[in-house]
């Protein structure tokens, strides 16, 4: 299966990923350490630290070395899965390990909602093209996608959690699925507009295709025409989009976990920001960015396998 050309494509893509990865991490490092403001002095709060303490802390966090050297140390650590140490002395990797499951479950829950609702609404809009339903789906998804995630989250929490009491207001005590439904929906809503539009567009293209007309004229039942002939070919663009979107969903969990107080990576990021835990913020963001890059790489490769035109082109 794997031809020389495929291998070359994968190789090129991997090389590109390495360049982007090095660039991204270096930019993060450069920006964080060349900006004004002193994390060590900030550590002391309002009380000034003595020069000796400052010098010791600097040496401990390697802040006295040149930026280039620090970056190499950071990169070396990263390759060993070490994302640094927080100012309170805990390993960032260690803290992340406890929290990944929650975030991954939340992102996947949101993803399933996005797929089911987005594709469903797209198909509905395409089959009822030009009707009130079609326009309603378009309008509703656009309006929902224009509302910032944290507003939508707070409103959903107020209405469905506090007022109606259908879902827990916050926390993960009641476990999956009940604690994850509301936050998952809030994250998913943002992508609904794109998914349903994409599905609708390619469905319409499929519905007008010659082979569909042929199937119809041969007396194939409408349900089968849509289900087997149209959907199968029409969903490729949507599948690609949904793949890339998984990376963005991980980003969306940051704010939503904070609102619903789910003990995931995003929540840790939010609390670290509020506690001015610089190293933890950089560590978590780096981890999330790396995952984002890897996801898009995987999607790219998978896409090549799905669509032979891309593989050969």
């Amino acid at each position: 299966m794997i031809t020389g050309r495929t291998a070359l494509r994968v190789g090129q893509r991997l090389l590109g990923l390495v360049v982007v990865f090095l660039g991204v991490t270096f930019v993060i490092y450069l920006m964080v350490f060349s900006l004004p403001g002193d994390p060590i002095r900030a550590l002391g709060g309002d009380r000034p630290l003595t020069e000796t303490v400052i010098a010791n802390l600097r040496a401990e966090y390697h802040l006295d070395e040149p930026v280039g050297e620090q970056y190499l140390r950071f990169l070396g650590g990263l390759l060993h899965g070490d994302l640094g140490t927080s100012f309170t002395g805990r390993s960032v990797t260690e803290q992340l390990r406890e929290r990944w499951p929650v975030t991954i479950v939340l992102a996947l829950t949101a993803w399933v909602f996005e797929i089911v609702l987005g594709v469903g609404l797209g198909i509905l809009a395409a089959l009822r093209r030009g009707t009130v339903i079609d326009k309603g789906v378009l309008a509703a998804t656009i309006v929902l996608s224009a509302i910032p995630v944290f507003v939508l989250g707070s409103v959903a929490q107020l209405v469905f959690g506090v007022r109606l009491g259908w879902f827990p207001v916050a926390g993960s005590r009641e476990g999956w699925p009940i604690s994850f439904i509301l936050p998952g929906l809030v994250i998913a809503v943002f992508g609904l507009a794109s998914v349903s539009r994409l599905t609708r567009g390619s469905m319409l293209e499929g519905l007008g295709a010659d082979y569909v007309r042929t199937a119809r004229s041969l007396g194939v039942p409408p349900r089968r025409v849509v289900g087997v002939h149209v959907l199968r070919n029409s969903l490729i663009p949507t599948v690609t989009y949904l793949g890339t979107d998984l990376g963005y969903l991980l980003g969306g969990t940051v704010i939503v976990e904070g609102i619903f107080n789910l003990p995931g990576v995003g929540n840790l990021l939010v609390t670290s920001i509020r506690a001015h835990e610089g190293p933890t913020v950089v560590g978590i963001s780096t981890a999330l960015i790396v995952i984002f890059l890897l996801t898009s790489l995987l999607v790219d490769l998978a896409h090549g396998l799905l669509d032979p035109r891309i593989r050969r082109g």
Partner: protein
Amino acid sequence: MAELTEVVVPDLATDPEDVRRPFRGLVRRPGFVVPAVLVLVLMIIALLPGPVAGLFGHGDPTVCDLGSSGDPPRAGHPFGFDIQGCDLYANVVYGTRSSLAVGVLTTVLALALALVIGLVAGLIGGWADFLLSRLTDIFLGFPFLLGAIVVLNSVGQRSVLTVSMTLALFGWPTMARLVRGSVRSVRGADYVLAAHTMGLGWWRVVTRYILPGAVAPVLVVATITVGGVIVAESSLTYLGIGLQAPAISWGLQLSDASDQFQNAPHLLWFPSLFLAVTVLSIISLGDTLRAALDPKQRS
């Protein structure tokens, strides 16, 4: 020579009729008019918050009475009071300014950066193009919000200017790619060659013959960017790394409201409403412009 000038100069890209053609008839579409009017109103509010805030007689957002802390709407105070007992309507009106300022300033900065980088990459080509394109890739590799979190986390004084600069740092790559693409596609066109042959200076060739064709699609993306940036700013402020306390912004109001909305839900409703309407009108405006530019959708 005079004859030749007359034949060559009125080229397609700079002819006003041709540039405007996609947008003709736009004025009659409700999908354009409604958001355009809303954006206009919001801009007026942002430029002149005083008179608008004073409509109900309590226009100063800093006049507060702790006795009314969190009170619901009543006569003269259509949106009620925030936790400090300040008039919420006046605060929401003044908040329009920061949100729009960050949105517009970020987009202008990002657009300027994108034009320069896209032009240099597209015009010079070769190694400059290679380097700039990889740089674009690197910045495209950042998820917008996470990149901004990393930078703003270490910025001490976070004002409209510093927040805008940070967001612009991550906002330019898409537009730069667009500019580069358009520049490359017209770089070798006959009318550009003709302009060069006529001995026009390169600056004139770029600004009069190359850029006009590239600007329309970029402006559409820029419009949508304004909406996205406003969302990003309010989200960052909500997280605690956007604008800071003396500033009046929807993000700050919503951040305060998030602890209080069980007792005082109006603190959540009104800033949310303004934020959502603003973003929605800007994004649908951009969307209509994009549809107008897309020859597939224009019939």
